[in-house]
């Protein structure tokens, strides 16, 4: 991939016509570009496919502020073989969704969605009939709940039956305040992570770097893994779902981190 850097300069060249992705019902579109490269301008970084600028499905220009994110998207496009498998390019999909906002979600909508999810968090629903499973849940899930309670000063309690756990209004306020501090784009990534893991507690733990991605996916599928030990592992179902969840979660975590971190490099002066 060639690199074209024009930092802090207004583009002199004519932006070539963008590429629109028409949703096709038949086979996915063929790969029509040979090289991907990056263009850094004043507003952010753009991805260039063979001298055509990348555009989102709505037609707007694809610009991200974070350079590593643009590099990752360009790598993703480069990694496509003959066809562009859009359903498997999670990072690009997240970026497009964040830029386009096709459902016109506001920050309030997203925070409310996350708060309503708390009452149905996977990790809080535990089962005490089978002792082995109960031990596993206590050993693996309880520390994460304790960490979450300590980090956000909440008091989430697990439940042992089908009644949902009680989430007090103060807990909701505290968690809402935390989510409000993220930008709109970052919240898209957050929601993606929560939907993948079906748990806010695990999503927060992995985004705060308390768990690795593989570990978080294992915890989310704890009961499934437990049953696998008795009934056997089916590669085309269990492995497939595990790899898919891992790739989705990893994309979400990367997206959140690259969107909200700014690089501060303090050089020590050797004087």
């Amino acid at each position, binding site marked *: 991939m060639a690199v074209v850097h024009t930092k802090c300069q207004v583009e002199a060249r004519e932006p070539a016509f963008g590429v629109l992705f028409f949703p096709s019902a038949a086979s996915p579109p063929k790969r029509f570009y040979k090289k991907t490269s990056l263009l850094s301008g004043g507003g952010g970084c753009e991805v260039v496919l063979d001298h055509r600028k990348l555009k989102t499905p709505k037609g707007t220009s694809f610009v991200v502020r974070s350079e590593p994110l643009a590099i990752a998207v360009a*790598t993703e496009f480069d990694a496509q073989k003959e066809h562009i498998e859009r359903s498997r390019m999670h990072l690009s999909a997240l970026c497009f969704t964040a830029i386009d906002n096709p459902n016109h979600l506001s920050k309030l909508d997203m925070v409310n969605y996350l708060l309503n999810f708390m009452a149905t968090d996977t990790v809080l629903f535990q089962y005490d009939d089978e002792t082995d499973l109960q031990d596993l849940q206590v050993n693996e899930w309880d520390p994460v709940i304790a960490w979450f309670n300590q980090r956000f000063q909440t008091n989430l309690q697990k439940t042992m039956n089908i009644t949902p756990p009680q989430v007090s209004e103060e807990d909701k306020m505290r968690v809402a305040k935390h989510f409000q501090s993220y930008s709109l784009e970052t919240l898209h990534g957050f929601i993606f992570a929560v939907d993948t893991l079906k748990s806010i507690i695990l999503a927060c733990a992995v985004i705060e770097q308390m768990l690795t991605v593989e570990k978080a996916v294992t915890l989310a599928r704890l009961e499934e893994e437990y049953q696998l030990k008795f009934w056997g592992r089916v590669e085309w179902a269990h492995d497939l779902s595990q790899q898919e969840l891992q790739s989705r979660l990893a994309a979400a*975590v990367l997206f959140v981190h690259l969107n909200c971190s700014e690089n501060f490099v303090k050089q020590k002066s050797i004087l």
Partner: protein
Amino acid sequence: MSGTKVLRSLLHELRQAAPNGCIKDSLAARYVLAQYKKFATTEQQFCKARNEATFLGQTYLTYLSSQRKYLEIYKEYHGRGERSVRDTADLVGFKLPSDPK
């Protein structure tokens, strides 16, 4: 995973993801190597920035390897669809109306 292991695995994955198997021009490979050099030297024992960079590196590694493995499993087990008309005709020894006599 330690930093060097993550780096080696990352470069391996990027090599597999590249279209011609060569990562010399790969933007991502260059960026990863630059990041590693940047966070290599630190005099602090617990360097948060380096841990965060290693975490990001490992997350990206998980992303690339999970995608690749997903694709492998999918290719192996996913149905190939119906046979085309030509294949069916060849199977039973028929000729298609479009074939020359």
